[in-house]
């Protein structure tokens, strides 16, 4: 049972207390939760699109099985996450309508094109690695139903990273041409990856941290990503396209070229290189199968 005043509620969540779907919660908390969790669900669903076309091109039976399973996981995550949003008061249909009309957002990385099989490896390895850092921090989310599903999601994401790393390993130890494909993909994805965790707003000024929807700040997540993955990337002999990237041994902090935050804002507000095409594709496939939902839901009614 949560306290009934906003002040006491904030104290509750800030001291590590959790909130259940049936508990009282301030309107602002509910609205922020819906927006945040909805964007997460949208990202899982839109994340399917850059990868699904590569299921059809996967170069071995094993890769095809693994990639299908990965994309299937993501569709399953979207389903789980949308259910949490539904309990907070926004039905799945409304969520999908807002997504395809461009009213709601999805993660920056899913607005970019996937050009080669190298991109498939980089996405599964590094995009999922960046994602799992954010998602692990959500295990401590003040909203308990969301924190609970994050356990399953994190567990599955950890397999995606292994799959991605394996794809990359096979290619960098393959032919020079394959190695080149990986380096080019890394060059394409580095900037979006550096933007992934958001701007450097201090945690104490971040409203999502204030409500303990997030349990860590953006920069902390990015530093964790760099700590974990820069050495691994370099170990494979790949070059990271940022001349300023280095670790300050005294502070333990990574320095890097400041990402273009205007570009990030521009991309996530619907102006990424692939935004229109992917939303158009999602809208078209939704329209084409609308009759199925009409027929089945009419029967259920």
């Amino acid at each position: 049972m949560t306290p009934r005043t906003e002040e006491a509620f904030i104290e509750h969540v800030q001291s590590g207390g959790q909130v259940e779907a049936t508990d009282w919660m301030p309107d602002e908390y509910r609205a922020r939760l819906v927006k945040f969790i909805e964007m997460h669900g949208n990202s899982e669903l839109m994340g399917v699109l850059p990868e699904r076309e590569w299921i059809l091109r996967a170069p071995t039976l094993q890769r095809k099985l693994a990639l299908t399973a990965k994309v299937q996981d993501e569709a399953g995550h979207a389903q789980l996450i949308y259910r949490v949003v539904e309990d907070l008061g926004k039905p799945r249909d409304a969520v999908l309508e807002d997504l395809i009309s461009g009213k709601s957002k999805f993660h920056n990385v899913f607005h970019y094109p996937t050009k080669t099989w190298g991109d498939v490896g980089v996405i599964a390895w590094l995009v999922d690695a960046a994602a799992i850092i954010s998602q692990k921090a959500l295990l401590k989310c003040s909203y308990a139903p969301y924190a609970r599903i994050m356990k399953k999601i994190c567990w599955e994401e950890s397999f995606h990273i292994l799959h991605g790393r394996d794809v990359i390993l096979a290619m960098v130890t393959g032919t020079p041409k394959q190695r080149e494909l990986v380096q080019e993909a890394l060059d394409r994805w580095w900037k979006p990856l550096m933007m992934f965790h958001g701007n450097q707003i201090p945690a104490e000024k971040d409203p999502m941290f204030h409500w303990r929807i997030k349990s860590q700040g953006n920069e902390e997540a990015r530093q964790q990503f760099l700590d974990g993955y820069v050495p691994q990337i370099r170990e494979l002999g790949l070059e990271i396209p940022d001349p300023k990237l280095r670790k300050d041994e005294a502070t333990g902090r990574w320095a890097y070229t400041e990402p273009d935050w205007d570009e990030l804002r521009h991309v996530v507000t619907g102006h990424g290189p692939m935004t229109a095409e992917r939303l158009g594709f999602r809208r078209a496939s939704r329209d084409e199968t609308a009759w199925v939902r009409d027929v089945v839901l009419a029967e259920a009614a």
Partner: protein
Amino acid sequence: MSSPAPPAVDHLLRLADDELILGWRDSEWTGIAPFLEEDVAFSSIAQTEIGHARAFYELAARELGGTADELAFDRRPEEYRSSPLVELRLVHDWGRTIARHVLYELADAIRIAEVKGSPDPDVAGLGEKIEREEAYHRMHAQMWADRLAESEEGRKRLVAGLEELWPYALGLLEGEARERLTADVAERLPFFTPPEVEPVERGEHVDEWAALWEEMTMVRRSAPGGQW
């Protein structure tokens, strides 16, 4: 790979190619099915079909040499033995997709029963294993066919798909298995009367086949001799 394979191996390749290409077509629904639940279900079915294809290719490779991957990806388009039914591109038409799904699963049940009776113990054993998984595909297909058939709109679309695809479904099988399929379809799909038609025989590929092959093999061809 250019000389014709002996009949038993050719049979394995037909089974493997059908399962590979159907799994390929099924995975086209991943992420864009009418319900998120069906994204998950169709992806799961696609994975099982691809798994079966791999097992059949491995058996074929005992005779032909090479690996399952080489058989799956490195043949010329004209060397594939897949049936036209599985090659047709049916996204985003859910009515025709369910029609193919149910016809394929009913035909495949007849074929898998034959595989289980093979004198080759490896082949028969694989048939046993596959049958356990295909039973779930049949339930899924039947559930969707029945569900669509309950409404006027759904039945119209499903039956149009069944009518169009029936000659293709016959072509998946040979000899008296075709009569058995006709009887099974009449029994399981009471809202559809299978007409007497000329089967669309295996051997010719459909128009969409060239594009499918191009896409399926493009990554491998992009870096010849690579490891993936």
